[in-house]
């Protein structure tokens, strides 16, 4: 009997205390990310990223080496960059799922990330140091090649400021070598780096003279190829001009080429900017104090169009044209200001020739809180207050109001632009689909509310109900597929 009891005690003790640590840690996930053909969650305590294709509905788990501190989505949902105390993990994502994660160890800790347009490189900056040190170095940055995993950490020369934002241009031939220029925006100056030569000393471009006390802070950079030369256009707070920077002189491949600065007249106190290749060539479009300006990037000639309505933002988009003014899609923009009830549709291909006649204003019944262009259509959807929507058709010059029965929680537009999805709460939760061609709306009840996403690549609306163990609803045509306990998938087979 004694032996039997001893045997049972050994059995219990040997198997009773070895549960995998993943079962002891919370399953809680952060906000979902819409990646290429996948919805993704970062689960900090599980130290993993979970991905699910909204059609295949199978969970893929990517383990992380350390507890994540911050997560950044790459442009177009090409991947997820997860920062932790020891470095970063880059998870490329395609329609097939997550690729092999890239692990990069870093000395410093960074909070902010700027991706190159094709997500091949990244610059990390902001709050450098170990994150808990009494003294940190805000001019410390890290340049990481996301294809090779090479990382360079360095401190920028400073003139009393530190990078507030980073804009990275495209890869291409520039000043005699294949380069990728990064612009680090600090108060009163810009630091210029070549990410293809990450150890090369940066060059600094001062936007004001040393004895000029004006506060000129660069806030936005747009890139374009002007006369065959890659050019950066910089909008700055405190300046009525747009700064144009080019690299006409050749330089060694391991050095940063010298930028040449030019100032181009823009709208007074420009609040937004876009650079587009329209029917008449490259043009810089700016808004400011209700004036919409078109600036020639080489001659600096500016045409100002009085909008007559408060506009502070430009949302450019492309859509088919009725005429053959340009090859391919035409170029358009929505000019508007948050809190204003007016929106102006600008035909960017024609505005230089026709002035105000190329602008179509629409005044809505309530202030606009969000505005989304409809892809492939000369239209947009506006969110009005807490319960209103309006479908804007700039061809017919109509604004079709749609009133939600309850509170409008979120709004997304399908990739093709044919549908607008809205999450509405009127006691019960519902997912509303609006056909952008007919304006017809249909609602489907949901068990719970949550976060509404449209997944790029598969163009599928997904609601993440933000439940502890994962709960999503996927809109498939006119039915909703629900999945509960998403994060428990395979939990019995550790």
């Amino acid at each position, binding site marked *: 009997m004694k032996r039997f009891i001893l045997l049972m005690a050994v059995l219990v003790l040997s198997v009773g205390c070895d549960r995998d640590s993943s079962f002891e*840690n919370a399953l809680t996930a952060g906000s979902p990310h819409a990646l290429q053909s996948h919805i993704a969650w970062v689960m900090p305590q599980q130290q993993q990223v979970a991905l699910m294709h909204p059609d295949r509905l199978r969970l893929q788990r990517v383990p992380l080496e350390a507890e994540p501190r911050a997560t950044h989505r790459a442009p177009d949902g090409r991947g997820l960059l997860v920062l932790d105390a020891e470095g970063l993990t880059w998870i490329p994502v395609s329609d097939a799922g997550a690729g092999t994660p890239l692990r990069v160890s870093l000395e410093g800790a960074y909070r902010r990330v700027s991706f190159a347009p094709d997500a091949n490189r990244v610059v990390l900056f902001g709050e450098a140091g170990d994150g808990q040190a009494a003294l940190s170095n805000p001019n410390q940055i890290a340049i990481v090649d996301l294809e090779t995993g090479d990382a360079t950490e360095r401190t920028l020369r400073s003139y009393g400021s530190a990078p507030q934002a980073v804009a990275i241009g495209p890869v291409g031939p520039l000043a005699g070598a294949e380069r990728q220029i990064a612009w680090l925006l600090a108060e009163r100056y810009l630091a210029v780096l070549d990410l293809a030569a990450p150890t090369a000393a940066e060059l600094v471009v001062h936007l004001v003279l040393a004895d000029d006390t004006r506060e000129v802070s660069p806030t936005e950079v747009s890139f374009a190829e002007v006369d065959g030369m890659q050019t950066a256009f910089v909008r700055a707070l405190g300046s009525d001009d747009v700064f144009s920077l080019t690299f006409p002189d050749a330089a060694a491949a391991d050095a940063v080429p010298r930028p040449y600065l030019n100032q181009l007249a823009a709208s007074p106190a420009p609040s937004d900017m876009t650079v587009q290749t329209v029917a008449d060539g490259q043009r810089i479009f700016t808004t400011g104090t209700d004036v919409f300006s078109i600036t020639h990037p080489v001659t600096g000639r500016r045409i100002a169009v009085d909008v007559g309505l408060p506009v502070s933002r430009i949302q450019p988009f492309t859509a088919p044209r009725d005429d053959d003014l340009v090859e391919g899609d035409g170029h358009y923009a929505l000019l508007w200001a948050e809190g204003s009830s007016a929106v102006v549709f600008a035909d960017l291909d024609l505005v230089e020739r026709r002035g105000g006649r190329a602008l179509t204003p629409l005044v809505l019944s309530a202030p606009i809180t969000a505005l989304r262009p409809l892809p492939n259509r000369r239209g947009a959807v506006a969110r009005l207050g807490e319960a209103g929507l309006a479908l804007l058709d700039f061809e017919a010059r109509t604004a079709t109001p749609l009133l939600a029965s309850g509170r409008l929680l979120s709004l997304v537009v399908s990739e093709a632009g044919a549908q607008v999805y809205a999450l509405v709460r009127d006691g019960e939760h519902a997912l509303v689909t609006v056909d952008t061609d007919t304006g017809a709306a249909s609602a489907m009840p949901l068990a719970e509310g949550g976060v509404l996403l449209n997944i790029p690549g598969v163009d599928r609306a997904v609601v993440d109900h933000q439940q502890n163990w994962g709960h999503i609803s996927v809109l498939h045509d006119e039915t909703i597929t629900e999945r509960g306990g998403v994060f428990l998938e395979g939990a019995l087979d550790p």
Partner: protein
Amino acid sequence: MKYFLCLIVLLPQLAQAQIDWRLTIRGGQTFSLDAGHDLVSSYPGRTGLEVSLDKFVLSPSEHSTLGLGVAYAFAAASDWVYEDIDTELMNGDLRAHALYRWSTGRSWAFNGRVGPVYRATALTLADGGGELMAKTEQWGVYGGLGFDYLFGDPSPVEMDELFVGFSMEMTYAYFPENELVVAGTSWGSLDTSGPGVLVGFTYIW
């Protein structure tokens, strides 16, 4: 199953047993060998109770008897997982078995039994936001080896009287792995097979 039914019908007519009935009420633990049990609890055991009634129908020799029995058993485990999710695993068994008993003729008797078992299992996870339950029902095989110690040192002559004793049994249940799908999501395979131990009282008359 066909042969099992034949035994039930024919065996009582083959011989007269020394004892007729045995009732056992025992509690104990059953253990999971499957790592999937980690989703339920860090401790691999379930606490349960079994009530078994056996009818002895054949006595091939002076000390041995054969019988048939049925039992109902219930076992449960509850704990937490993922820091804040409460878990509960319950299974109810309906068992039928053939029993072999070898008695010393005095206080001690040794038993062995084997038979089919029908198990209904429910695994529930709950947090503040709601609950998810996976249910499954399946057939398996059940067996046990144990002993009875009857109080009062009964002699074979007295076996037609009621005796009370202590009973203990080591058990093993086998079930095929079973996939649990809840709200469209497969949680994976749960295997509730495993050994166990039962301790309690037996009544013989």
